[in-house]
């Protein structure tokens, strides 16, 4: 007999069954991931900067002093507003062609970009969930819904957004809706495929056998298991939305030009990119950093939550 062989378990005493493995809480598991940490911290800093923009050495992002146009980063100059007030101001990131402070505009722009990113993600995911659940669970609706989704998907997203914003005017709502609509089919498809696989899971069949009403099956059993891929998808939608907002402004069909958004700052700066690249590059760094942070965060979440990487945990 080999040393250390164990006693056979008693068939009728449950105490010797393998001790239940304590699952680390999902939150803690997610937070232990480096990508999530780094992405999250960067994002948090950016969000805090956006919230506390008024206290971070900024001035009103709209006020201009044409005489102080195109100052290089770090210039200290006398600011004379159109209203006639004058004060000494340090242009941390220089000024744009109208003499507006790029640092202030960038910080206030963070509010817009982050709002757009979050709103688009939430909107696309929410509507996508509704459509995906309908299509995935009510098979007779599937054909029609999916044809419409295919149609929306077949129109290149950017074209759609450009047209919508150009045609309906660049308000925050239009921009959010215009960026969100092309994302909806993707979310809906994802959700539908998750629903189609999850609904075959024995526990869903079991719930049906327990006479659970359909809406409850959807909300209690199917949706929670689709949440992880949706959150991941949501982060990528968010990152893409921030970029698309900038692209729309760049193409001249974004939010109103005087509004401080990263896209608008860059669109203004691009007219003189060769002489004053700071007008594009500095806000560009903020933009890229944000998108990067969201992407890294999403990647981390994926590693943690995606069932593919995490076979039995759930």
């Amino acid at each position, binding site marked *: 007999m080999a040393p250390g062989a164990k006693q056979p378990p008693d068939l009728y005493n449950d105490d010797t069954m393998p001790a239940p493995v304590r699952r680390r809480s999902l939150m803690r598991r997610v937070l232990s991931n480096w990508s999530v940490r780094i992405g999250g911290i960067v994002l948090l800093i950016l969000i805090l900067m956006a919230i506390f923009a008024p206290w971070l050495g900024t001035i009103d992002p709209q006020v201009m002093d044409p005489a102080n146009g195109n100052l290089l980063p770090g210039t200290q100059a006398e600011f004379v507003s159109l209203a006639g007030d004058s004060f000494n101001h340090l242009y941390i990131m220089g000024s744009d062609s109208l003499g507006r402070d790029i640092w202030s505009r960038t910080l206030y722009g963070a509010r817009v970009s982050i709002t757009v990113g979050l709103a688009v993600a939430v909107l696309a995911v929410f509507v996508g969930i509704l459509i995906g659940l309908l299509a995935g669970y009510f098979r007779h609706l599937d054909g029609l819904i999916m044809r419409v989704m295919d149609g929306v998907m077949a129109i*290149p997203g950017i*074209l759609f957004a450009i047209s919508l914003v*150009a*045609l*309906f005017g660049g308000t925050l709502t239009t921009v959010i809706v215009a960026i969100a609509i092309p994302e909806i089919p993707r979310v809906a498809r994802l959700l539908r495929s998750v629903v189609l696989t999850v609904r075959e899971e024995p526990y869903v069949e079991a719930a049906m056998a327990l006479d659970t009403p359909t809406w409850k099956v959807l909300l209690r059993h199917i949706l929670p298991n689709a949440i992880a891929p949706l959150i991941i998808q949501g982060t990528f939608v968010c990152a893409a939305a921030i970029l698309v907002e900038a692209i729309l402004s760049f193409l001249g*069909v974004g939010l109103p030009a005087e509004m401080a958004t990263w896209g608008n700052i860059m669109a203004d700066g691009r007219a003189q990119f*060769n002489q004053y690249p700071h007008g594009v590059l500095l806000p560009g760094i903020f933009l890229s950093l944000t*998108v990067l942070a969201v992407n890294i965060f999403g990647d981390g979440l994926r590693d943690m939550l995606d069932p593919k990487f995490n076979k039995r945990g759930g």
Partner: protein
Amino acid sequence: MLVLLVRRIVATVPVLVIVALIVFLMLRLAPGDPAAMIVGNSGTSADIARVRAELGLNDSLPVQFTHWVGRLAQGDLGESYFMKMKVTHLIAQRIEPTVSLSLLTLLITIVVAIPLGVAAAWRHGGWLDRTLMGFSVLGFSIPSFVIGYLMIWAFALHWNWFPTQGYTRFSDDFWGWLHHLVLPAITLSIIYVALIARVTRAAVAEALTEDYIRTARAKGVSELRVLMRHALANAAIPIVTVIGIGVALLIGGVVVTETVFAIPGLGQLTVDAVLSRDFPLIQAITLFFSVIYVMINLLVDLSYLVLDPRVRY
């Protein structure tokens, strides 16, 4: 096979009808009046009313729609409001630059991204993998116009290696064609390489966990063969699928890249048409892009037949 092809093509018709309807409604419900645009700065309200009537913009929406669809069914996409030209002619003029740019981008992407992705999957978690994934996330995060401007600044203005803008027709001058497309294609391919490399890595990494890989290794075959013949061949479907889906991304990228490099392609035409409310042109381009998208994805679907013997439609 032929029956299959026909059936699949017929199946795309409802999708295109939906596209047509969406685009049409979007245009007609929007504010902004092409007539005002055509009349110009010194025209008057009366001029605008006259042009509206001339363009048939005063008819009811269903009438306008049936009119348009009716002509569409006869293959007539209409005439641009501004340039008295058939929109098909205008689109035809712009296809070559866009197709050239897209194909070159695709070529660069496939040549670069797939080997990178395979290498990363092979050394899953190693430095190559990390670097590559870092690059790919970065590629997703920098707006393409910033990359484009930096490229122009460095390679066209500073070193003078490439032209800053424009396009030369393939038939006029092959080297000129290539010369004009290098920078835009690289700019455009960055995000695409990021995407495809990522998918390749994931698909190959997943294939590498499959049992048949273990069987192959148990046979003692070389690692390269395991990667290419076994893992990559099985990862082909997701990769091709994403290349197909990526066409939408590519079209979006084309719009921006063409603007940055002033390439007279469909992307620019689109922006122009939207900004001038040239309804027939917008409708035609969107429909055109949708057809391309649908066809490419049909092609992708058909490619499954070749890539995976299990697939039967």
